[in-house]
């Protein structure tokens, strides 16, 4: 294993420090705990705060989406492990502008336990909270059990919608409603070609022989829901996109936003080869592509692979996607 790191146990604190030094105009840490980061101008009086969080190893995911028109704060765990309830509470207090705080994060056991506990702690501090979970991975559970699905790259759409709604002054109840609506209409599926290597152990997270790929991969270096022979880019795009179109029930006249996301070690060129076929697949079925995102939005350290996400659009969702936003890793308008 080769990695550009110092002591493995300092990895998280050091990259957070790097983000803070590189983007002091956009983000800051409210106290002395580097694991809590908020947008530079937080709290915004009278506006709903949005706190996200989760394990490290997914940049730009979580900490990369703290900024204007996106999340207001983040609690940062170790690589692939949950932040503590106290860190979540610190972020909550730092972004509370008097209109309540939305917890928006991916559906994983450890994160849910710690965020739920933070809800209790925030309530004791007089800060009302509500929770919306990203749960877009169609491979993790069938449609009938969609509430148990795990959250992956598609949470980008939920961040964008929640942040835009909060910025325009929606109440906590309204922010929850539009965010739930976006989550409901988002679906993601991914494939992996090479595993993640944990900085602490230096070991690959799974073994994958040449000529095979993991289908339905998550973003924690875990294997997918099944393994199959490596396919061409066009076959991969067709299979993944078709699963999403079926899951969301899209057809002629549907409008969508498309996100082709790299998992960490896949070149942009390959992502664009995937996007090309995804675009054609959708266009051939009369599905209109209104917004496109191609690049690294949610990664799993150096995992090779990609995911495709679709958000079915209506006018309300599109307006939220197009609202201005700016964070260290994301810009709109």
């Amino acid at each position: 294993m080769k990695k550009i790191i110092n002591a493995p146990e300092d990895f998280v604190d050091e990259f957070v420090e790097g983000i803070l030094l590189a983007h002091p105009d956009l983000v800051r840490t409210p106290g002395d705990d580097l694991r809590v980061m908020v947008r530079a101008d937080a709290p915004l009086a009278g506006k709903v705060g949005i706190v996200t969080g989760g394990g490290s190893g997914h940049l730009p995911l979580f900490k990369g989406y703290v900024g204007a028109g996106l999340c207001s704060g983040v609690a940062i765990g170790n690589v692939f492990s949950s932040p503590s309830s106290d860190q979540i509470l610190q972020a909550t207090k730092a972004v509370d502008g008097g209109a309540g705080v939305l917890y928006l994060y991916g559906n994983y056991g450890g994160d849910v336990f710690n965020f739920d506990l933070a809800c209790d702690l925030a309530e004791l501090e007089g800060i009302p909270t509500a929770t919306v979970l990203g749960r877009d991975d169609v491979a993790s559970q069938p449609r009938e059990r969609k509430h148990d699905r795990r959250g992956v790259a598609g949470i980008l759409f939920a961040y964008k919608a929640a942040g835009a709604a909060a910025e325009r002054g929606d109440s906590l109840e309204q922010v929850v409603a539009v965010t739930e609506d976006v989550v409901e209409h988002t679906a993601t599926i991914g494939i992996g070609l090479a595993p993640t290597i944990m900085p602490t152990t230096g070991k690959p997270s799974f073994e994958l022989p040449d000529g095979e790929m993991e289908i339905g991969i998550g973003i924690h270096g875990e294997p997918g829901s099944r393994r199959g022979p490596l396919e061409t880019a066009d076959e991969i795009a067709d299979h993944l996109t078709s699963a999403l179109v079926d899951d969301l029930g899209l057809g002629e006249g549907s409008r969508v936003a498309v996100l082709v996301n790299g998992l960490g070690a896949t070149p942009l060129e390959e992502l664009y080869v995937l996007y090309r076929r995804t675009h054609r697949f959708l266009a051939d079925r009369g599905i209109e592509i209104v917004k496109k995102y191609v690049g690294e939005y949610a990664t799993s350290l150096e995992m090779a692979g990609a995911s495709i996400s679709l958000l079915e659009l209506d006018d309300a969702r599109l307006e939220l996607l197009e609202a201005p936003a700016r964070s260290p890793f994301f810009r709109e308008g």
Partner: protein
Amino acid sequence: MRGIELNQHIRASLALLIESADELRDLDQALGDGDLGITVTAGSRAVITELEQLGDAATPTEIARTAAKAFANANPSTMAALVAGALLSGSRTWEGKDEIGLPEASAFVAAAAASIAHRGKTEVGDKTILDGIVAAADALASAGDPAEGMTSACDAAARAVRETTELQSRRGRASWLQERSIGLPDPGATAFWRFLEAWAVVSARPH
């Protein structure tokens, strides 16, 4: 029991509970990821430290909330978060109360059980800490006086561990072992039982 006595009783009980850390670690290594020993040791030490800082005038609610936060932050594991959430739920039943007797203890444990069932999405028979807590809550609810409540809650928690040992674990990491979990005592339920045992030992000490 007023706040000051409650505070002392919790600290003394947790100091005893730490002596069971190796047993809990071993049980959890067989069924989970082995961090329950650390969760209990680090959590108990943190609670003891924080409760020592509280003034004598602290109310039972304040004491329970201080304990919850300390336990959660010491080692942010799933079990720590569940226990802390349960303590916070329990603390709500004590608002405005200065004196904790059998009805208050009973209400606290029932609220704690409800919190764990809700947050852990678990039910009795899943072979978790909930089996012990629900058994103790039922025992407290039907007890006639505090001494009887203590004894019967402790017996009920012990029975819950024994009776669920032969079941298959249905929640958490332990459930991944499927039928291999049969015959192994649940670490969480055992931890709760050891805590009640410690509480009973401290109760029996001369004041």
